[in-house]
């Protein structure tokens, strides 16, 4: 069963198909018909050639010619008429688009669009520039600086870093661990401080790739293992044993039934790629994902909801006689609805007071009551009866001094 999104696409596609079908048939029919009329008139002209130039046309010929001419002219006119009738079908495509897809008006967050400001425009260009550099599209980034007439305020070493990281990730995609191993070797100490096991995992992958590529490389695999694994004996002894045992299974050709199949899964490469990206970005203190991409992913979820809400609010406002003014939606400088995002988008601890249904802030911090429940300071003020108040969850009475501010 098609859901809404598919349905709106199908609605447009249907109209496009209709137009294409009809135009196509007009094209082939008209070409054929015109061809016939041309042939017919050519035949007549051939017949006329047999008569001498200054002869007069006889009645039979006149009638034939007249009929042929009239038919040809009617055919030509028919083509233009047929085509004109497609106007309705063409415009149906446009109507289907307008009906099923909505225009993004001015951003729902401001009446005039914040990014009209020159400074904001420049900042956005900068963000895009950073993104392009991250993607390794140096030339395109330079072109953008040229066209926007704007020198990027970039950390000059950053492009190189991303270029290198991109190269490594690309190599991992192409099943080559060497660039990654080089990089890990250069940053060994810092990585170990982070508790990273990346280097061992990369070596493991290199070893397993040798094993997998058949008997001829078995000796190479052994040499590789002897050269690289001893260093990791302290932390990974068990795994090293396993790896060498895997060699055994592979040469007997019974790898599929061995306990080590998971190591030969192609997904290992994706995992190590992700892990590399994560650890490298932690080490370099640069974001794992492009900030622009993260932001846009969140925006693609948020925008439809916000547009829907702002439309509903505009309608509600029309009903009221007194229209509240300003860009902020509820006077709290906060979006009017909660946008539920994936946990990948949770970057900060947010404590929302369960009493006031409102995020806490520096002025209104979360307070731990002596019973362990946490509510906001403003909520306590609201609950105060004289010097004391009761916890709304366990009704334990206490005074303000007993509640302690906490930080998440």
């Amino acid at each position, binding site marked *: 069963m098609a*859901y*809404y*999104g598919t349905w709106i*696409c199908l609605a447009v*596609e249907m109209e496009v198909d209709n137009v294409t079908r009809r*135009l*196509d048939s007009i094209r082939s029919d*008209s*070409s054929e018909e015109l061809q016939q009329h041309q042939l017919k008139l*050519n035949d007549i*002209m051939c017949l006329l*050639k047999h008569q001498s130039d*200054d002869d007069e*046309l006889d009645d039979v010929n006149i009638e034939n010619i*007249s009929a042929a*001419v*009239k038919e*040809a*002219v*009617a055919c*030509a*006119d028919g083509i*233009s008429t047929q*085509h004109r009738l497609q106007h309705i079908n*063409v*415009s149906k495509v446009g109507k289907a688009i307008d009906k099923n897809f909505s225009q*993004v008006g001015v*951003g729902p*967050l401001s009446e005039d669009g914040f*990014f009209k400001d020159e400074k904001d*425009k420049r900042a956005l260009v*900068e963000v895009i520039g950073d993104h392009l550099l991250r993607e390794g*599209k140096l030339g395109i980034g330079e072109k953008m600086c040229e*066209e926007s007439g704007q020198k990027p*305020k970039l950390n000059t070493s950053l492009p190189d870093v991303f270029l290198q990281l991109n190269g490594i990730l690309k190599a991992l995609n192409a099943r080559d661990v060497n660039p990654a191993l080089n990089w890990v070797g250069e940053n060994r100490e810092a990585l170990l401080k982070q508790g990273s096991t990346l280097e061992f995992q990369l070596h493991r992958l290199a070893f397993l790739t040798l094993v997998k590529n058949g008997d001829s490389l078995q000796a190479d695999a052994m040499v590789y293992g002897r050269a690289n694994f001893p260093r990791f004996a302290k932390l990974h002894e068990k795994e090293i044993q396993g790896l060498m045992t895997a060699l055994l299974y592979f040469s007997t050709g019974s790898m599929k039934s061995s306990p080590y199949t998971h190591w030969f899964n192609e997904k290992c490469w994706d995992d190590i790629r992700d892990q590399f990206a994560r650890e490298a970005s*932690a080490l370099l203190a*640069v*974001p794992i994902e492009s*900030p*622009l991409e993260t*932001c846009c992913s*969140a925006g693609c*979820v*948020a*925008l*439809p*909801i916000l547009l*829907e809400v702002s439309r509903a609010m505009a309608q509600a406002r029309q009903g009221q006689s007194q229209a509240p003014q300003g860009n902020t939606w509820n006077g709290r400088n906060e*979006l009017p609805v909660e946008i539920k995002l994936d946990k990948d988008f949770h*970057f*900060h601890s*947010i*404590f929302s007071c369960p009493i006031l*249904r409102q995020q806490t802030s*520096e002025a209104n911090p979360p307070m*731990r009551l002596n019973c*362990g429940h*946490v509510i906001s300071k403003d909520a306590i003020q609201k609950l105060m009866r004289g010097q004391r108040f009761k916890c709304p969850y366990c009704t334990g009475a206490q005074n303000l001094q007993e509640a302690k501010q*906490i*930080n998440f």
Partner: protein
Amino acid sequence: MTTISTDVKTLEHSTLKVPYEVLNKRFRTAQKILDREAAYVAQAGSEVEKLIGEVPIPSRSSMGVLSGFGSSSRSMDDCDSNTEGPILVESSINVQSIAALLAGVKDGSGEQMVCDSPQGSSVIRGENEMEADEPVISSNNRVASLSKRSMSDNGHGLKFEHSRNKPKVKDVAKLLGVLVERLGSLKRKAGDSIQEELDAANTVRKRVQHLKSYTVQADAVQASPSQSNVVQKSWKRSRLNRMLIDHLLREGMYDTARMLADDLGIKELTNVDVFWAAKEVEESLKRHETGRMVQWCYENKSKLRKIRSTLELEIRVQEFIELVRHGRRNEAVKHARKYLADSEGEEYISAVKKCMGLLAFPVSTSLSPYAELFSPDRWNQLIAHFRQEHARLYQLAPNSVLEAVVQAGLAALKTPQCYRTDTKNTNCPVCTDPLSALALHLPYAHCAHSQLVCAISGEPINENNPPLVLPSSFVYGSNALQEMAKNNSGKVICPRSNKVFSVTEAEKVYVM
């Protein structure tokens, strides 16, 4: 149910609407060409007929000739209200030819006969039910008007009847040759222009299918969330790139947009080609040339009129200013007479008045508004105005989709912590410059429910990882604190205050 797919509904309007506008424009161009070519054919046909004289009995095809003249003179606007399908037209031609026949025989009583003839209208009604929901009455009207037209045309045609001597073979052959040529030209041009339309329709189809590939996937994931979303991920990346390209185009960074589209191989999913014409216009304006812009205005005349654009007036005014600037005042007046005189409406008149006032002032004047008119900055304003009208022409929103999405995304991610040095997170877009500057004026995300992340491990704090507060007042997940205590003989270090506590000092916190 709609949460996954509404992003397509909300974000992709211009992805489809712009190529549709191209299709629509090509349709109109094709219609003009076909009308013109059909008129040439009809003209060539009538030349032949004139030469060989009228045939005694008007036949079905003679009607065709006449209606050919009639319909080619009809404008496209008529066509808007004309909703019958091809079948209906066939039928109306049939009735029409009967009318023509009757008109020929009974000399003028034909119209009456057709409208009253039960047979005639039943033909229409029958065909009509097959085709569409067009009310019967209007198609009858159409028949009436058509038969009226054919009658008058017929009356005109009858004038030839008793003309002259038999024509000569060579003259007839020559005219027939012209007719065959015209037919060939029609055939060729119809083929070409319809192909152009089909190409444009194909662009729309390709894009709609690209969107569909995502929605189908989204539906599948929605139906069984265990499905992998690798395809979706790459689709979303491509969407980001499409939005980027669209934004670059909207901001006039045409070459960058094109390079990116070529690099990613997604040019046909973007509007790069459409904006290429805009690039040419803007570049000519930057060189202080008006020709390309005038041409563009001409090419899009009807659309510009529909959106009540003043662009053409602006560019004509600029031409006038340039003439004055170069001391060619007489030519300027001629120019104004030709292009500015027939402007209507209050704002046009005042613009024209200002222009004419310009004649009285030297180029070096500092008097407003004449100094502004002479200012070279007016060219930049023209570029900005053009960009705006170009977007309006293709029914693009005033902002690029990227801008709207970035705004929404920043607001959805924005927390008060993003602006405190001790709680920044490198991976949070709002915490990092330059996005943080952009987010400054935006509202914060609304969080009705607490959403806690352990500052040590980055894991979510929830019932599987309940929160504990240290005497330093900082809260962490119990998993991370227990792990740390295990390796550290019961001691934990609060990373935010750098104080050491015994894990037993940690107290439970209940977050509702």
